[in-house]
């Protein structure tokens, strides 16, 4: 009676109860659950689904090392032919036996009673007795009958809603972690952007300060009104930039992505270079660094490139600032370009110390990833690269011989309309 209840329970719960046999096989107690297609009740490990097969091997190994504490498997799923998923978890248990120390305390009568109870469990129950009949000869060798009470089982539980609950919690936790990580990355990006902006805001100031200093030095300079004009020009530029920064914040990062490759609206590289030179020529002059731009001076017709004029000017200004920072009085910085078939290559060369070998590989990388901050220069280059790459262009560094740096900017030409 008790056995038919046990069997009914097992069937209802869709559990599998497998008992380890000494010949390496497993006996299934009760009817096979729906998720397990088993034709016989004594199963070789490879009759079983792969995960279970591997867990059964693990259980035997666990027992072989003399351990009797329960062993639990990972959760896994079996899928039945109707497409239904069965979340499962197995436990390896030793029943009936007791750790030696406990067993000593236990009365013999109790032990006998326990053993009787277990045997009872095995008999009865229609399919079980049938099986026992078939296998009667083997049953004599079953170590279960010889050993004092210890029998080894693997129970496989169908987890049903418990699995769904656990899954929902873990899913939620992981999704939250992912969201947190991506927000964190967003914040870092914004931080870099902010640094770049501050850096860029500083650039026209160099022009203003340079011009004003020249003015102060030559009080009766006939070029006075021209210099004033330049200072004014730089101030206006800075004003424009500040407005742009406000724009950027207003429209998130969106505006950064906007550029044109429409030939009619494409910025003219020659004009951009000239406008940057206007700001920087006085600064270079003050530092006694020559600024050589032969190709620009000679160029008569416009040279449209893909991008945006204001940002292109900032990229150029960044490169010139960099070159100036590492130049000494008497050096020359060259800003030249070459008009090639599909693109324009522009280079800014200086005679400074060059970029140390160790940081060349990461020169244009986000400073947040290349370890210690390289300061404003690093940010400027990061800005240059991300900006130019957005336009399908590229920037590269090359050392010069015997010393100096060469930054090469490749800008795409707009598709011919």
């Amino acid at each position: 009676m008790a056995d038919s209840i046990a069997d009914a329970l097992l069937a209802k719960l869709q559990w599998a109860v497998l008992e380890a046999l000494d010949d390496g096989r497993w006996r299934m107690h009760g009817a096979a659950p729906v998720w397990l297609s088993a034709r016989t009740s004594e199963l070789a490990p490879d009759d079983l689904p792969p995960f279970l097969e591997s867990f059964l091997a693990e259980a035997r190994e666990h027992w072989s090392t003399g351990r009797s504490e329960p062993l639990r498997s990972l959760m896994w799923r079996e899928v039945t032919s109707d497409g239904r998923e069965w979340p499962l978890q197995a436990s390896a248990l030793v029943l009936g036996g007791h750790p030696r120390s406990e067993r000593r305390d236990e009365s013999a009568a109790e032990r006998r009673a326990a053993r009787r109870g277990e045997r009872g469990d095995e008999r009865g129950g229609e399919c079980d007795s049938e099986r026992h009949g078939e296998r009667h000869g083997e049953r004599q060798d079953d170590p279960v009958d010889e050993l004092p009470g210890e029998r080894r089982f693997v129970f496989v539980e169908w987890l049903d809603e418990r699995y769904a609950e656990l899954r929902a919690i873990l899913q939620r936790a992981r999704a939250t972690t992912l969201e947190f990580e991506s927000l964190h990355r967003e914040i870092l990006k914004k931080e870099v952007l902010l640094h770049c902006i501050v850096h860029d805001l500083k650039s026209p100031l160099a022009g203003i300060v340079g011009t004003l200093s020249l003015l102060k030095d030559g009080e009766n300079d006939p070029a006075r009104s021209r210099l004033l004009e330049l200072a004014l020009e730089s101030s206006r530029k800075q004003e424009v930039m500040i407005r742009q920064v406000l724009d950027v914040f207003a429209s998130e990062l969106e505006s950064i992505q906007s550029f044109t490759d429409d030939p009619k609206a494409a910025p003219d590289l020659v004009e951009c270079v000239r406008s940057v030179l206007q700001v920087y020529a006085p600064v270079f002059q003050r530092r006694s660094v020559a600024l050589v731009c032969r190709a620009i001076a000679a160029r008569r017709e416009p040279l449209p490139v893909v991008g945006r004029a204001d940002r292109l000017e900032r990229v150029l200004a960044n490169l010139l600032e960099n070159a100036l920072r590492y130049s000494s009085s008497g050096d020359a910085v060259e800003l030249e370009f070459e008009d090639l078939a599909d693109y324009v290559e522009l280079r800014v060369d200086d005679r400074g110390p060059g970029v140390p070998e160790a940081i060349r590989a990461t020169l244009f990388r986000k400073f947040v990833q290349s370890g210690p901050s390289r300061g404003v220069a690093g940010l400027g280059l990061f800005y240059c690269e991300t900006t130019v790459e957005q336009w399908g262009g590229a920037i590269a560094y090359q050392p010069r011989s015997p010393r100096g740096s060469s930054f090469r900017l490749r800008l795409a030409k707009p598709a011919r309309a």
Partner: protein
Amino acid sequence: MSPMRAKVCMLGTFAVGKTSLVQRFVKSLFSERYQTTIGVQIDKKELVLDGRALTIMLWDLYGEDEFQKLNESFLRGAHGCLFVADGTRAATLAATLELAQRFEAVVGGVPRLLLINKRDLGEQWELGDDELAKLAASGWDVLLTSAKTGANVEAAFERLGRAILARA
């Protein structure tokens, strides 16, 4: 002769795309929806490589995090392993390399590849060529994959399969 059966583990922290790579490879499917794996999911794929049959049992294990730690006993008996990191989350690489060390302690010396997944997300890509070169220099066979576009997915499983057959 029945084909060789190989246990191959997919290992890496959570959400790097282990399940997506297996689904792409076994079923040619991809979903943007993230459904975290609980425990393990085993898929089977039969391959014929250079005329030799190989049945791969793919153990798609859950991604380790603070909620679920990896139990090393489930790695035992593996014939090969695909370690997976997410190229858009640089930190997953370190975590995966750490898993690789633990794998090595349990199942030493079996063929393994390192897949840097989500290659299609170029904009968010965080791993530079220098990092990849370093990995290659330290003995890793690295492939950049995308479960979304399928890029290098078949190549990865087949390369591992060949390496497993070569040892068999």
